[in-house]
């Protein structure tokens, strides 16, 4: 076997898994939060529900010296219908918990795909803690990375933390950790916008431009920016529709190994009263197959102008199947996961078609 090594066993906490020590700050205004972040510098991070950050800190995947809680910042708690480009859309504060999202008045009716995705996240207990913003900024995941320090040490770490290569694709220069957010694909599909606040002011970015296809730098958000709110397009019953389907081993706890968000805008006969019968535009976005929510423009092309007949759906599913490149970084066999792309895209689109046929 290999040459004699002088490897050093390194053990960390072997009792109850504990957080490392850090400074905990609780700003009560957005301005204060930004100032604290600026003062604390790069070795600091924001936290909302903590359900993503704290496990990562216990496993020493992240080791901030200062943690700044956003849960008492009132600007992040908004839920309102607001004029936006002359239409009424819904604004969701980033610190709404996922449980709060699903009980917002009339929200379930207006944005069923968002509620569906929120209710698919993890468990009821974690949804009581985890926030919308947290899920949208969820760290990318990989089962070479989401491990304790000792485990990662045993494989000489990986490039996402403490190491140099990506074990999923050892010859690759980049990290292939996978987006595991249920809400992000939905937001991209819906064409939602995110309001970010930073030291130099606010900016609004489309959801699709918030994400990078890189397991390490998976957000375009700068570390000192805060995701303040999500702006949803106006609800327009019958004019557009969206669904979210999720594949995972168990009905709770598990992150998606595949998420399919599909959005269609209807046009044609009955368009005026929300009963169009042709797809004017569409977006199909996959979660769990890349480091970002992967939009499949070819699928949209296949759907435009169709009435979501089975042939169009099959063409779109085929278009989604081809670029989907699941890697060996989640639960399940990756070739099966790729096969499932076709099935799940088909089912998501079929649900949209079915909903159309039952509402018209």
């Amino acid at each position, binding site marked *: *076997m*290999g040459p*004699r*090594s*002088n*490897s*050093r*066993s*390194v*053990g*960390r*906490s*072997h*009792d*109850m*898994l*504990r957080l490392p020590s850090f400074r905990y700050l609780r700003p009560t205004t957005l301005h204060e939060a930004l100032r604290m972040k600026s003062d604390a510098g790069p070795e600091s991070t924001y936290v909302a529900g903590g359900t993503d950050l704290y496990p990562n800190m216990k496993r020493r995947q992240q080791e901030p010296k200062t943690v700044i809680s956003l849960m008492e910042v009132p600007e992040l708690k908004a839920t309102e219908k607001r004029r936006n480009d002359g239409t009424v859309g819904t604004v969701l504060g980033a610190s709404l918990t996922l449980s709060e999202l699903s009980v917002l008045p009339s929200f379930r009716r207006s944005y069923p795909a968002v509620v569906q995705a929120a209710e698919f996240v993890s468990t009821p207990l974690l949804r009581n803690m985890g926030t919308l913003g947290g899920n949208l900024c969820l760290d990318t995941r990989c*089962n*070479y990375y*989401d*491990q*304790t320090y*000792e*485990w990662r*040490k*045993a*494989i000489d770490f990986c490039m996402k933390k403490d190491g140099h290569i990506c*074990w999923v694709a050892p010859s690759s220069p980049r990290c292939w950790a996978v987006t595991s957010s249920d809400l992000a694909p939905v937001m991209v599909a819906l064409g939602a916008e995110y309001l970010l606040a930073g030291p130099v002011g606010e900016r609004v970015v489309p959801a699709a431009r918030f994400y990078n296809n890189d397991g390490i730098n998976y957000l375009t958000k700068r570390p000192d920016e805060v995701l303040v709110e999500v702006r949803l397009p106006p609800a327009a019953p019958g004019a557009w529709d969206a669904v979210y389907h999720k594949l995972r*081993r*168990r*009905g*709770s*706890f*598990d992150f998606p190994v595949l998420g399919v968000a599909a959005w269609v805008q209807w046009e044609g006969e009955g368009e005026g009263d929300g009963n169009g019968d042709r797809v004017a535009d569409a977006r199909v976005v996959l979660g769990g197959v890349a480091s970002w929510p992967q939009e499949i423009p070819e699928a949209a092309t296949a759907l435009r102008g169709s009435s979501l007949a089975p042939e169009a759906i099959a063409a779109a599913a085929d278009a989604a199947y081809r670029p989907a490149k699941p890697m060996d970084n989640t*639960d*399940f*066999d990756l*070739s*099966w996961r790729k*096969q*499932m792309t076709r*099935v799940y895209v088909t089912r998501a689109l079929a649900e949209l078609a079915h909903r159309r046929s039952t509402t018209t």
Partner: protein
Amino acid sequence: MGSRKKKKTTERRKDGTGMQRQGRSECRVVGTALRKVDATAKVTGATRFADDLSLPRMLYAKLLRSPHPHARIIVIDASKARALPGVKAVLTGTDLPIPFGILPVSQDEHALALDKVRFVGDPVAAVAATSEEIATAALDLIDVQYEPLRAFPDAIDAVEHPDPSIHDYADAGNIHKLIDLEFGDVDAGFREADLVREDLFFFEGNTHLPMEQHAAAADWSPGGRLTVWSSTQTPHYVHRALAKVLELPAARIRVIACPNGGGFGGKSDPFSHEIVVAKLAVLTGRPIKITLTREEVFYCHRGRHPTLMWVKTGVKKDGAITGMHFKSLLDGGGYGSYGVASTYYTGALQTVTYPIPRYKFQGARAFTNKPPCGPKRGHGTPQPRFALEVHLDKVAEQLGMDPAELRLRHLVPPNSLTANWLRVGTMGLGRCIEKVVAGSEWKRRFKKLPHGQGIGLACSSYITGAGLPIYWNAMPHSGVQLKCDRGGGVTVFCGSTEIGQGSDSILAMIVAEVLGIDPGHIAVVTGDTDLTPVDLGSYSSRVTLMTGNAAIQAAERARDLIAPHAARKLEVPAERIVFADGRVFDVEQPEHGLGFAEAVQLAEAAEGTVGTVGSYTPPRSAGRYRGSGVGPSPAYSYSACVALVDVDPATGIVRVPKIWIAHDVGRVINAASVMGQIEGSVYMGLGEALMEEMAYRGNRNVVHKIPSLLEYKSPTTLEMCDVVTYVVEDPDPNGPFGAKECGQGPLLPVPPAVANAVYDAVGVRIDEVPITPEKVFKALRRKDKGEEPRFGPTRFPEIPWPEPTRVPPPWEGGDGTAVEQSVGRTVARHA
């Protein structure tokens, strides 16, 4: 019920048929659904589990574990760690050089690796410090130099490559154990058959996953006494291991088994952390505690062996088996653990369900560089049961028989001997099959459900305690002491260990029944080597039968001790004295009596302190050959299961909406506990059938792929199926009040029932557990392409089997001993 027949009690005991049998109507406590004695503590959070202990001046221990799957330790330098302020002691392998292990034949573990590490997670060093933070920092300062060795990720690799050897002892290369047993001429059996069928199966390893992480605490008194608290199922074996490794007299060690937050077999070995924490207490003179992380619990493992199996069976047209040849290859992981017994178990219980006139078993266990496998619920038998029951489903189909009918027609008769000399007593499998067949509307559904829906049936049997102890001795397997207080309370002392199965309550209920008192007046003290007589532990489904029989004996002796004094006071013959409803009275004039407390006082005044003992030793087993120690049991439980499944043909995803399970428990002691054990077994069997597996990355240093509660898939409420439970009673003379086990057996038929149902649903055979969507999907694609519609193993490796041990089955004469076949003659060979 009464104690009139004092003489007769003695006679019954002499004839070895156990304790008195009673109809349900005679029992007031046994058979009811009594609230468990520890129920209130458990629902209020008052139960103190091992990690809930906190002692003044307590130190914290942590273990440094190997990052290599297989390596020689060149040198360990702990000087920097020792110098860290707050560190009170650092241990390495040389501080605890004496090996230990649960089985006398495989004393191959060291508390801390001495010269080699054998899996990622093998403990290498330990630190005691005043805080966890300091202990953690100290681990960082220990330098270990390793020389990595070639690692073996699976059993076939280990079988095919003897070098470098993982241990310096083994039956051949990296094959830890080789077994070859032959009961009659199986080839002759195959020649008589109308159909001979061969199949290959694989059962992936999985783990217990108790919700409680293992924890242990230790305290050393300057007077020279050591106390160790641990979440262990086997305090007696921990006691022995501590005495051996620490070289302390057993008389100066007290082991207290805390209530276990789930065991399932995973806390049945003496563990490194228990020995380390004890040694550190001795060295530092301070109390100390260690709690393992969830990841470390995966490294303790001792779970289900991954097992590759080959089975060949000859049957007549009516399904009668003419001969069976069964081979198994177990992936043992890095150490022996219970592995030798596990290996025998993969061949032992095939014979107790359907008559097998000629039987051959070959079993092998390989060492590999993974956490050691051992006993998980069903110990070594769920794997062959899966193989056998799916195999029979295929046989039935080939014969054109209904699989339920095939089984019903060929049941091992009660009170019979099997080919491998197991003595079957009561046998309720037929009634179990009838229950689930009727309940599930089997005949209406089997082969008649729409594509994608299916129904499958499987049966099983399990031991009610092993007939032989783990280390050879002639002493009882279980002991009970009773103390009758003059206030009317009774305390039961027994070494058994409460792991959630309800063993403490069984003691209270049985003593209450015999003494005719309120179970609430009974205190139970268990699992403490200073206070309680030895019970071997909570494993092999032995506790109800063995502690129950010991408790009956102790309680009957108390009754016999008290009765004459009550009789004298009541001026009636002692034979007429009855104990019931908290009173001691004349059976012929029930109003003429005393309170139980008063009767105890009379006995105490006359005889002194009222205390008795009882003990239990299983009946001698029939087999006398080498290897016959695994399989015999005082009684076998039986289960039948029907599973209903939905298979999504587009994805291969299998859902199980409903399971019908019937279990022959002999006699119910606590009805609520029986239901809970059966339902819990079905749950665990469902997890094994569909999703649970110990997965490793062989290409990355043989690391556990998913040592976490998130990625090791334990079914949630949303995966659990509805369960319809039938409790079948046929009291077994060897069981207390006729009781047999129910905590393990009902797991066994679930995976094969699901596999058979998947076949009924979509026509593909998944000859491998867990039945994951990927496997079903692949098999469906093969079916579409016209290939064999199956997913499963395709080869069994060449194994250097030894010369078989030949034992004629009972119907071919002989006395259960092996014979040596040399030219032209037969010589008896005693084990």
